[in-house]
Each structure stands twice: as structure tokens, then as C-alpha cells.
């Protein structure tokens, strides 16, 4: 019981601090997220070296994954998908590996509200920034009055609602899964947690990544699409 309480207290108090090289105190979620970044950088360097016309095994897997993601963007973003794909893919990889760190018994960085809030703010900037880049200043402002003028207040409210719901959805799912896993591990430390871990850590982590990215793609498409791009 004390252990569960300690976990809950830690979550609500933000996060525990870790001292780096005995010099600074850094929240543990930031350290975990540095680990994820380091892993992603090293993996990308090694996977994209020596790309050949006759692909090796790892290159085939890499190409299949990137092809899958490009296809998703192409289907949902219309004809200008190529500009947006790299950013969305980077965020997708970061969220995916952040959610999956609990498989190697590191608390996931996305259970820190400040990290999910940052990701949601980045999505907000991406969605509305592209709206203004694509339509220009006046055209971008005019988008808020579409499809009808009296929907203007609802469209303006969505600017606040979208990032809050993106942030809370990711945070709540990961925290909920993390708390449940800690409780299960307290009650039955051996074998029993395995299926639960497969569901809460692996399945839910992947699903929440897909939901976050898919919603960002849908909102971006909504803010950039024009009548011609719908008709293709």
C-alpha cells in the first residue's frame, strides 16, 4: 500500500529529480526522454548508412515502415502531404518510443504532463501555422468562418480545446496504464503482470501514438484543404 501511495504521490508532485553528473537536478522524465532521443539518433544513423539498390534485411524493414507512414499521410493529407510527412514522422517515433520505455522498466516520459503539453502545443503550432502558411494571412483568418459564419465561435474555441484534449488523452492513458501496472506488480510480482504489460504498455502505447498522430493529420488536413485538393 505504501508503495502505491508513493507512486501516486510521485505522479501528482510532478516527477522525482535525478542529478546529472552531480551538477544539476533534472526531472527523471527529461532524462528518460534524453535516452529516447539518443536511441533514435543512433538508430537512425546506423539504419541509414550504406543504403543500397539491393537492400539488406534491415533496409527492407525500414523501407516498409517509411512506406507505410508515407501512405498514411498521402491518404489523409491530400496532394501536399510530402511537406508535412517528416515532422509528423519524427513526432510519431518520439511518442512511440517514449510510450514503450516501460517495457524496459523505465517510467515513460509521457506520464509527465509537461512533456505531453509540449507535444500538444507543437501540434497546435503545426496545425494553425500551416493554415496561415498555406492560405496567407487573410485566407487563414477566413478559414475560421468556414463552413458557415456563425460557426466562428466554435472554430475559435477549438484552438484551445484541441491541444488540451490531445495532451490530456496521451497523459491520462499513459498515467492510467502506469498506475495499474504498478498496482498489479505490487499484488503479484511474477508472471501475472506479463499479459497486462502487453496490453497496457505495448498495445496502449502504440494505439495512443497512432491516435495522436492521426488526429494531428486530420486537423492539419481540415485547416489546409481546399475544394480542388478534395477533388484531387
Amino acid at each position, binding site marked *: 500500500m505504501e508503495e502505491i501511495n508513493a507512486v*501516486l*504521490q510521485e*505522479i*501528482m508532485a510532478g516527477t522525482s529529480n535525478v542529478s546529472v553528473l552531480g551538477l544539476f537536478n533534472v526531472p527523471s522524465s527529461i532524462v528518460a526522454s534524453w535516452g529516447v532521443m539518443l536511441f533514435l539518433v543512433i538508430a537512425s544513423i546506423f539504419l541509414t548508412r550504406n543504403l543500397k539498390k539491393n537492400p539488406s534485411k534491415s533496409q527492407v524493414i525500414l523501407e516498409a515502415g517509411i512506406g507505410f507512414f508515407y501512405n498514411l499521410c498521402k491518404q489523409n493529407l491530400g496532394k501536399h502531404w510530402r511537406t508535412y510527412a517528416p515532422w509528423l514522422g519524427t513526432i510519431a517515433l518520439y511518442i512511440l518510443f517514449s510510450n514503450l520505455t516501460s517495457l524496459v522498466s523505465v517510467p515513460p516520459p509521457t506520464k509527465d504532463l509537461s512533456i505531453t503539453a509540449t507535444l500538444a502545443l507543437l501540434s497546435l503550432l503545426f496545425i494553425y501555422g500551416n493554415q496561415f502558411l498555406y492560405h496567407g494571412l487573410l485566407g487563414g483568418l477566413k478559414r475560421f468562418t468556414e463552413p458557415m459564419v456563425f460557426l466562428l465561435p466554435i472554430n475559435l474555441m477549438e484552438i484551445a480545446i484541441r491541444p488540451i*484534449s490531445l495532451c*490530456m*488523452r496521451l*497523459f*491520462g*492513458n499513459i*498515467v*492510467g496504464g502506469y498506475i495499474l501496472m504498478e498496482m498489479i506488480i505490487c499484488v503479484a510480482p511474477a508472471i501475472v503482470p506479463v499479459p497486462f504489460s502487453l496490453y497496457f504498455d505495448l498495445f496502449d502505447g502504440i*494505439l*495512443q501514438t*497512432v*491516435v495522436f498522430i*492521426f488526429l494531428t493529420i486530420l486537423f492539419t488536413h481540415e485547416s489546409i484543404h481546399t475544394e480542388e485538393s478534395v477533388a484531387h
Partner: protein
Amino acid sequence: MISGSLSLIGAGIAVATGLGAGIGIGIATGGATQAIARQPELSGKITSTFLLGCALAESTAIYGLVVSLVLIFSK
């Protein structure tokens, strides 16, 4: 003391958001099974749409969880 107990009651009430999520996911599952029964060849596409819809319906319950956690632990 009294406000502490009241916030616990509020946290309990916040769990009622699970009701909406349950109904929503139930309707989505019903629709997905019917769609697969009619067109089994599209089951892959239906399943992925269904999972996305479930995750969206589930988010109301997740908001309830966040609210109840805040109620329990905010002093």
C-alpha cells in the same frame, strides 16, 4: 477534513464518465461486427477504424480519471 472527504466523493462521481465511454465503445463494437459480417474482405480496414474510434470514445473516461486524480491529490 470535510472538504477532503467531499473531494473523495467528487472523485468517485468523476468515475461516472466511464458510463459514456462504455456505451460509446459498445455501439462502435456493434457497428464493427455488423460491418465485418457484411463485408468480411474489408475487416482489416474496419478494425483499424474501429480501434481509432474506440481510443477517441475512451478519452472521455480518461478525462474522468485525470479529474479524479486531481481531486484526490490536490490539497
